[in-house]
């Protein structure tokens, strides 16, 4: 999914697909921060920026999404896949 094609419905669909059945404010906080940061900077936030921007620890964030941060939250926010090796 391209960043521009994302919608709240798409997020909810992707969340359900990954096993995330109950979406609350904390999930939205992560998703909205990822999207606003990417829209402004055209890149994903650094770990520290993600932490500051959401007010959450990475550990808490990782626990929120069944498929984690890199391939979970990022994907659900419509960001491109992270560079991995």
């Amino acid at each position, binding site marked *: 999914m391209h960043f521009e094609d994302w919608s709240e419905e798409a997020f909810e669909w992707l969340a359900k697909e990954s096993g995330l059945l109950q979406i609350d404010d904390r999930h939205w906080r992560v998703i909205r921060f990822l999207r606003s940061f990417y829209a402004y900077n055209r890149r994903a936030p650094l770990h*520290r920026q993600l932490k500051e921007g959401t007010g959450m*620890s990475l550990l808490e964030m990782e626990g929120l999404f069944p*498929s*984690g941060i*890199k391939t979970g939250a990022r994907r659900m926010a419509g960001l491109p896949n992270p560079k991995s090796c």
Partner: protein
Amino acid sequence: MAYGDLIYLDNAATSYPKPGECLRRALDQYLRIGGSPGRGSYDLAVEADNIVSEVREELSLFFGGDSRYRLCFAYNATEALNTLLQGVAKPGSHVVSTWLEHNSVLRPLHHLREEGRVEFDLVRFDQNGFVDPGEIAAAIRSNTRLVVVNHASNVLGTIQPVADIGEICRDRGIPLFLDVSQSAGLIPIEVSEWNVAGLAFTGHKALLGPTGIGGLLVSQEVEISPSRFGGTGVDSSNPFHTAEYPYRLEAGTVNLLGILALRETLAYVKGLNRDKHYQREMALLARLRDGLMALDNVEVYGSQNVDNRLPLLCCNVRGRRPDDVAAVLDGDFNIAVRAGLHCAPLVHKHLGTAPEGAIRFSLGAYTGEEDIEAAIQAMSAIARSTG
């Protein structure tokens, strides 16, 4: 953003921080003698060329080379290994290598095989991460032209029995080349004594130099054709690339600033009591290994002791993706580690950790006890949060 408080445990990727005084001295020299080495007869160019020649000699001696060996500079070990493999591959030729290799060997081999220029066999490693020299011997065929072995795995840290493999290769008349990306600067390397025909190295890991400088050490008994062509500063009327070493395997102006920096850091590394440093780092590795193995939900890979190893290890937190664990270590605990396949996909395939890979902790010259304790505490917190 400042990284002053960062606990850096990714020295197998590149050493950090670098010895600043060495790099500053190199820059001062570069600003003074930064002419084009070997490309002019004026004193500046000659002095630059003389220094490059001296560094070739210093590196060759550092690796245990004698007068039979020539040192060709490259950007890094990957480029040096490409130079080697492309230069040896001929239709009908065969190469023996191992499952421990980095993509710097595996990918050139696959490309060359696809082009019909080489066949190859990869020898597996045992449950502790070591290759059996007997299996190397068994894989050698009548058309084998080269054996390439990763001296020390960048995933498991295991140091391979290269002297034993060298003996086999000598008896069979096959050149043995080593990838010493991880080991150079950490443990002694003795190419001549070990019957090793050559090696590929990079300057930016345990040699503590900058990125962008490495090389290929080659015994004169090995025939390697050039795979890149261009200016060398010698034999310019020849329409073909010169056969003269070291220029045969170098095309274009060398990285003088990188060479000067590597000379400085090489002297720095040689000035250290390397055995003492190695023992210190291995004691820290043993502490890390024991600390991680004591944690529920953490799986440590590789041999059950730290003998014949470099100071690195891989592990995973059960039920957690390694890239997310690495993100938590970085974002919450200020600890830098490398997650993934580490450009060595076959090692992870063997371990059963593909495709996500694992988390690698790799120690370095500046790693302290407090860094290891912090890493264990951080991993403990992550493991505890796993249901």
